[in-house]
C-alpha cells in the first residue's frame, strides 16, 4: 500500500522539538525526510551545560553522545542525516542543490538565522520556484518580537497558556510537560498539508510563516471569548471544575499513585456511589445535588480519598469506568510503555538503534486504517547518509565529495 506522502522530499532544519516533530509526522507517512545538521554534534541534547544523563542508555554518554540521546532518537526515526556547514559557501551550494530536488523545507530558527545564511525563502524560491517553506520561529517572521528567542514554556507564557493553570488562589503554575512545541508542530504540519494540496491545484509553492505563540493562543480562543463576554479575568481553579463535582485527583495505594475522577451528571454520581458501595455519607443533603456538591467539594474530596487510598489506581479506574464514571489513572512513563490498551492498538513501537540499542517508543497517534504509518528506520547516526545523498541524489563523484570535506563544508 502506497503511503500518503510517498514521493515528497522534505529538508528538516528543525532543532530541538517543534521542527523535528513536524518533520517526523511527514516521515511516518512516507515522505523522505533529510535532516541537514551541523557537524558539531547535535548540541540540542548533548550540550554539556544542559545534558540530561537519564536520557542516555544506562546513563552513559559513550564516545558519540549525539547518536545516543533518547529524545533525539525518538523525534527523528524514519529520517536521513546529512551534515553540512551552511555558513560555508560550498556547503550552501550543496544545500541549494538539495533544495532544487526537494518539495518542503522546515526550520524553527529565529528569523535572522536563515537570512544570515543567505538561505531565506526568496533565495530558495529562486532555486526551486514551487518550494514550500515552513518557518516556525517563536513569535513569527515579522513584528516587534520577531528576533526574540523563545523556548516552549516561555512562549506558552506570552501566549496566555500559563496564566490559566494553577492551584486555586495561588500564582500560576508551569505545566509539567510543555505542549507548546507540539501545538506549533501540529499547526505547521496542518498548513504544510494544505500547501501541498494548493500546489497540486496551482503548481505554486509558498512560504508559511508560523508564530509558535500564535499557534498556542489559538487553543485558548474559547477562554478569550469568555473574557470578552464577561469582562472577568479567568480564575485558576486547581483540580476543580465550574460545573462538575466531584472533579479531582485522588491518592491511591502505592507510591505516588493517583486517579482523576470527573463526574458530570446525576447518573454518573449515582454510578460513583454504587461503585463505592453506597456508603451513608453519600446520602447526606450536602452532597445531594450538583450545586450542593460544588459547595462542599472539599469535604466530598476527603470522603472519596479515604475510599481510593486503599485501592490501586488501575483498580479504581476499572471499577468506576464499569459503573459509567469518567475516571483515569495518572500514568507515568513506564506505565504508558507497559499499558495493555496501548499495546493492543499498536501504539507502542520498538526500534533497534545501532548505538543506542533496542528500545520502545510512542508511535504515531494518527491511526489510518488503509495506509498506516510505517516504522522501520531508527534515527540516523550523525552524517550517516552523506555519501548516499550526495552520490545518488545529487550526482557528486568521489573527488567532488573529497573536495567538500577538504573545504570543511561536509562533515
Amino acid at each position, binding site marked *: 500500500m502506497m503511503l500518503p506522502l510517498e514521493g515528497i522530499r522534505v529538508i528538516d532544519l528543525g532543532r530541538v522539538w517543534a521542527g523535528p516533530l513536524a518533520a517526523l509526522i511527514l516521515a511516518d507517512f512516507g515522505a523522505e525526510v533529510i535532516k541537514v545538521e551541523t557537524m558539531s554534534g547535535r548540541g540540542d541534547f548533548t550540550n554539556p551545560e544542559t545534558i*540530561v544523563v537519564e536520557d542516555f542508555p544506562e546513563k552513559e554518554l559513550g564516545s558519540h553522545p549525539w547518536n545516543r540521546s533518547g529524545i533525539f532518537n525518538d523525534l527523528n526515526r524514519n529520517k536521513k542525516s546529512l551534515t553540512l556547514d551552511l555558513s560555508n559557501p560550498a556547503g550552501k551550494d550543496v544545500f541549494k542543490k538539495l533544495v532544487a530536488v526537494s518539495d518542503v523545507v522546515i526550520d524553527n530558527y529565529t528569523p535572522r538565522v536563515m537570512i544570515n545564511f543567505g538561505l531565506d525563502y526568496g533565495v530558495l524560491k529562486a532555486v526551486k520556484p514551487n518550494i514550500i517553506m515552513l518557518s516556525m520561529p517563536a513569535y513569527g517572521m515579522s513584528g516587534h518580537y520577531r528576533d526574540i528567542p523563545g523556548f516552549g514554556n516561555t512562549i506558552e507564557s506570552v501566549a496566555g497558556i500559563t*496564566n490559566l493553570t494553577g492551584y486555586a488562589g495561588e500564582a500560576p503554575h508551569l505545566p509539567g510537560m510543555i505542549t507548546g512545541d507540539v501545538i506549533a508542530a501540529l499547526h505547521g504540519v496542518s498548513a504544510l498539508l494544505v500547501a501541498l494540496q494548493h500546489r497540486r491545484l496551482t503548481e505554486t509553492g509558498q512560504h508559511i510563516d508560523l508564530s509558535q505563540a500564535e499557534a498556542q493562543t489559538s487553543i485558548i480562543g474559547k477562554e*478569550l471569548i469568555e473574557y*470578552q463576554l464577561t469582562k472577568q479575568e479567568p480564575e485558576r481553579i486547581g483540580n476543580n471544575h465550574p460545573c462538575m463535582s466531584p472533579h479531582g485527583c485522588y491518592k491511591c495505594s502505592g507510591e505516588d499513585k493517583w486517579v482523576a475522577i*470527573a463526574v458530570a451528571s446525576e447518573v454518573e454520581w449515582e454510578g460513583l456511589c454504587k461503585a463505592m458501595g453506597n456508603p451513608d455519607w453519600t446520602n447526606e443533603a450536602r452532597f445531594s445535588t450538583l450545586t450542593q456538591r460544588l459547595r462542599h467539594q472539599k469535604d466530598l474530596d476527603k470522603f472519596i480519598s479515604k475510599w481510593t487510598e486503599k485501592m490501586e489506581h488501575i483498580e479504581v479506574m476499572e471499577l468506576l469506568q464499569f459503573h*459509567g464514571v*469518567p475516571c483515569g489513572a495518572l500514568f507515568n512513563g513506564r506505565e504508558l510503555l507497559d499499558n495493555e490498551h496501548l499495546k*493492543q492498538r499498536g501504539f507502542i513501537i520498538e526500534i533497534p538503534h545501532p548505538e543506542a540499542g533496542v*528500545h520502545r517508543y510512542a508511535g504515531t497517534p494518527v491511526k489510518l486504517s488503509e495506509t498506516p504509518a510505517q516504522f522501520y528506520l531508527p534515527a540516523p547516526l550523525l552524517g550517516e547518509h552523506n555519501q548516499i545523498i550526495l552520490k545518488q541524489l545529487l550526482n557528486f563523484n568521489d573527488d567532488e565529495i573529497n573536495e567538500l570535506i577538504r573545504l570543511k563544508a561536509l562533515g
Partner: protein
Amino acid sequence: MSEATLKNLRILELNAGIAGAYCAKILAQRGAEVIKLEAPGSKFNGSAENLYLDTAKKSITINLRNEMGIGMFQRLVSMTDVLIEGCNPSEKSEIGLDANSLTQNNPRLVITSVTGFGQTGPYSNYKDTPMVSYAMGGQMYLCGDAEGTPLNSGLAVSEYISGLYAFIGTLLALEAREKNGRGQQVDISKMECLAASHQYTLTWPEYSNSILSRPGWPGDHAPQSLFRCKDGYVNLRLQNADIAFLSYLFDMPEVASDERFAATHERANHMKELEKLITDKIINIGKKDVFRKAGEWREICGFVATPADLLTNEQYNEREYWTKINHGMTGVMSYSGMPAKMSECAWLSSGAPLPGENNQEIYCDRLGLTWQELKQMQEWSVI
C-alpha cells in the same frame, strides 16, 4: 492570494466534542464546507465554546433516532468527503452508525473518529473528560509541585492536540485518496495524542530505567521558574544563567563579578541565593520591561499574559492575528485567527451558525425537498 484551498471538500460533523469540532473548524476556515449536525430543538446557547469552535461552519438539525432522519443522513453521507464524529464503539451501535454501511454507498468517504481512547482496545468504551485524558496520557502525573497533588491543566489541552492530529489524519487520508481513489477510517485517541506529546517521559524508563515525575521538566542548571514582578509574573529561563544580564536588569554591577554565580558548577551550589536575589529585585520591575530587556540580550524569557494583555498585545496586533467577527447574538468580538500565515492561501472567518440555520439550503436546494416537505419534517421532529 487565491481562494481558500479546501473549497471543494464537503464535510459532516456529528457529536464531535471539542477535539472534533476544532478539527472541523480548521477545515472550514481553510475553505471546506462543514455542516454541523445538531439535534432538533437545539438552541443556540451563546457559549464561548460554540462561538469559537463553530466559526465558518453551517448547521442543520437532524433526528438520528428517527427513520426518516437516518435516511436523510445517509443521503448526506453519500455526497460527502469526510465525516467527523466523536462516538465510541458502543455509542455508534446505539445510533446505528456503522462504518461499513456508510462506506458501502460512498467508498471515497473518509471517516475521522476522535474519541478518548480510540475505536479498538480494552478502553475503547471508557468515558473521558479533558482531565481524564490529560491523566491517562501521562501529562497530569508530571504537572504540579514535587511533593503535592498532581495538577490539572487549566485548559482542555488534550482536546486541542487531538483536534490537530485529527486534522492531519484527515488530510493524510485525502492525500491517500488522491493516489488510490478510496476513503478510509482515521482513528484518533486522545490518550495517544497526549502520550505522543512528551519529551523524556517515555524514553527515560527505556534508556536508563528512570521515571520522570513532578515538577516535570528536568535538567536545569539555572533558575527556571515564574517570578513575581510589579504587575504580574515573568517566566525566566536563564539556561546559560547570564549573570551579566541580571546585573544589567537590576542595575547592580556587583552581581556580575560575584564569584558565587559566575561559573556553572559554582552556581549550582548557590542556586537558592541566586533565586532569592532575583525574587527580591524583580518585584520592582514591570513584566513587559523584563521581557523587552531580556529580548535585547537574547535571553529566553516570557511574561505571563492575561486575556487583557493578549487582546492588546502589540506583536499580535502588528501581525493582524485577531479577526473581528460580528455575531448577531453577541456583537463584535476578537477571535484568535489562523496561526499559520500562508503566502498563497486565503482563509475564511464568519460567525458560528444558529442551529438549523442552513436547513433550507441543504434540505431543499441540495437534497431537493419542497418547502412543504421541509415543514412536514419539522412537524414530525425529523429536523
